[in-house]
């Protein structure tokens, strides 16, 4: 990784300021936008880890260390509802995607606090299990890998619909052991039916407590897509500049050629699998620390400003926690809500579900 001043890449003297990785460049504005998203997602998750230990929440799982690539995904997506826009088949380490899309950290914290105001699941699901119809964010499931086999379905409708909507599916390296990963490769490349599926594997090297290389041949995951004719690449997922361009290339293939693309992003898992392992901080490379060093070295921001961003974000998150934990909890009877969609022609449940017939 090279910053602008140290880069070997030759650019005109009056080139816009920014950061470069190899021959890839990202403007200052974009870098600072990404940085802000990454910090918000990180501070939010670190506070959620504390909530899991303080009694303000119950269980934490999330994606600290994977903010760089996730933020790039969220910022480059077409946000909206319906097949003209991108669909998100996320797993539970994608908070930065949501922050980049515009989610207020308060909403994620509400889910962490399992209050009824949790807009994703009304206090039902674990944290980082997002769901938002208006943004095509489909309900995240704890079941490992199943998002892979739902993505071709949305992509099929998108391809028929026309336009350039993409189905973005994100999973971990360990989850690629599930057959659903291969199903996604097969269903996305049926002859004459290739589908615009952007497949993103976040390779943090671990599956729960087990290292990737102890269970998989350490060949690249992206190579498993090659026999299907799926173009792809490996990227340093801790480098926002490289990640930005990888996502840009992948989205371009999906949007314009209406066929799949795979990105394998090497990332870090900074707090282990979940609070079930105690969520201790690891010594893995930290994408935010690395990014900030580069931003400072390139003169795009100074330490004082970075500290201010951190302080302001911390205050925002603390206020969100203080608010969320005071909000309403589910009440008895709420368990029935939304079990079935109302159907006026159904003699048993014309309205919401009310229990056994």
């Amino acid at each position, binding site marked *: 990784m090279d910053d602008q001043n140290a880069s070997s890449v030759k650019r005109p003297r009056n080139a816009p300021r920014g950061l470069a990785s190899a021959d890839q460049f990202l403007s200052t504005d974009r870098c600072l936008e990404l940085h802000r998203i990454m910090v918000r997602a990180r501070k939010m998750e670190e506070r959620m880890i504390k909530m899991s230990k303080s009694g303000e929440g119950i269980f934490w799982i999330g994606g600290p260390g994977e903010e760089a690539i996730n933020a790039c995904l969220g910022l480059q997506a077409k946000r909206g509802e319906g097949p003209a826009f991108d669909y998100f088949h996320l797993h539970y380490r994608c908070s930065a995607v949501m922050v980049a899309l515009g989610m207020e950290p308060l909403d994620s914290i509400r889910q962490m606090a399992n209050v009824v105001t949790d*807009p994703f699941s009304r206090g039902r699901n674990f944290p980082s299990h997002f769901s938002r119809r208006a943004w095509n964010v489909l309900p995240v499931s704890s079941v490992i890998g199943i998002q892979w086999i739902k993505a071709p379905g949305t992509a*099929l*409708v998108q391809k028929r619909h026309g336009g350039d909507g993409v189905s973005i599916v994100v999973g971990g390296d360990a989850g690629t052991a599930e057959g659903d990963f291969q199903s996604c490769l097969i269903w996305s490349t049926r002859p004459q039916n290739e589908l615009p599926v952007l497949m993103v594997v976040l390779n943090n090297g671990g599956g729960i407590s087990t290292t990737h290389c102890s269970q998989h041949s350490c060949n690249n995951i992206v190579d498993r897509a090659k026999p299907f004719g799926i173009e792809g690449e490996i990227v340093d997922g801790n480098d926002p500049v490289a990640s930005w361009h990888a996502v840009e290339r992948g989205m371009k293939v999906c949007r314009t050629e209406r066929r799949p693309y795979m990105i394998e992003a090497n990332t870090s898992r900074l707090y282990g699998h979940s609070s079930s392992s105690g969520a201790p901080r690891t010594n893995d490379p930290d994408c935010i620390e690395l990014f900030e060093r580069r931003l400072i070295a390139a003169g795009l921001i100074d330490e004082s400003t970075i500290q201010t961003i951190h302080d302001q974000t911390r205050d925002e998150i603390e206020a969100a926690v203080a608010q969320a934990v005071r909000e309403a909890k589910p009440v008895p009877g709420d368990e029935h809500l939304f079990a079935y*969609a109302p159907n006026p022609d159904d003699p048993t*449940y014309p309205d919401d579900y009310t229990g056994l017939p």
Partner: protein
Amino acid sequence: MATIVQAVRLALHYGEEHLGVTDVFGEDVGPPLGGVFTATQGLKTAWNSPLDERGIIGTAMGIAYAGGRPVCEIQFCDYGFNTVDLLKVAGNQRWAGAGEFAMPLVMMTPSGSGIRGSLYHSHSFESLASRLAGWKIVMPSNPLDAYGLMLSAIADPNPVMVLLPKALLRQKGDLLLPGEPKDQDELKDRIDAPVGDRIAWKPRWPEMQAHFVPIGKASIVREGEVATVVSYGRTLPLCVQAADQLAEEHGWSFDVIDLRSIFPYDWKAISASIEKTGRVLFVNEDTEVTNFGEHLFRRTIDEHFYDLTVRPRILMGKHLPGIGLNQVYEQNSVPQLGNIKDAMRALVEDPA
């Protein structure tokens, strides 16, 4: 009169024309075969999928998320067991997502024994399916109900599983479907693909009419006073046959209830009949440990203990790993006419 398999085909065609069905898909569902039981021949939205049951369910979910109206097929329910976690997820999307996502998909699959199907073409699925909250589960036992339940399944905003009794798929009904030609040969000529080369074949669909059988409404197939028999699927016509024979032999009249919907089930119909007769037998062919009928049995005890004049009874398939190929295995694993008739006789003869 149409068979169940023809009724399903006609319903799917009606669904394509009038209810917004966008995809009918699964293994061998598209041309040239049009379904292993021919239920999808000639349909304009039918397509073949990889041999990947999880892929079929997952893709159907994706299509439904994006506004499509898919009907997917698992070729035999025996091959659907590896999709159970996906089925669970399909059933919980609305609940888990705070009401934001409906899941309007139909999964149809042949279920049960009766075709000498050996270990992996004889399973029943309804007991497992009944545990999938968020799904509606139906199982017709005649062509008209198959047509009407399929239309209701397609129109429903929830995931609906249509279990088709394998043994009855080619049996003709005794009532015309709305729009069905009266001449069976004409119907066959219009909608059954020819054997052999069928590349140029196109169906000539009759002008079918709407007929919705409400999900959750049972059908009282026989009305009587002596006892109640509750069944569905393959065993339902056997219960009717046994009731008719016992009526002729002994003058006993039974309420025979075709449940038609596994969930939501028509508790009102069951309940009213038990209050009337005081004697009840539940019959199905799924295996006997944690059988769906046991739930109805439990509820009968809970809510009608003092209405019963004798102990309630239940007749089910045996708790076995499978159904063997030799007919001796099948006949001794799942209820047959003789078993059902014996159970009904014992129910009536049980002294109050």
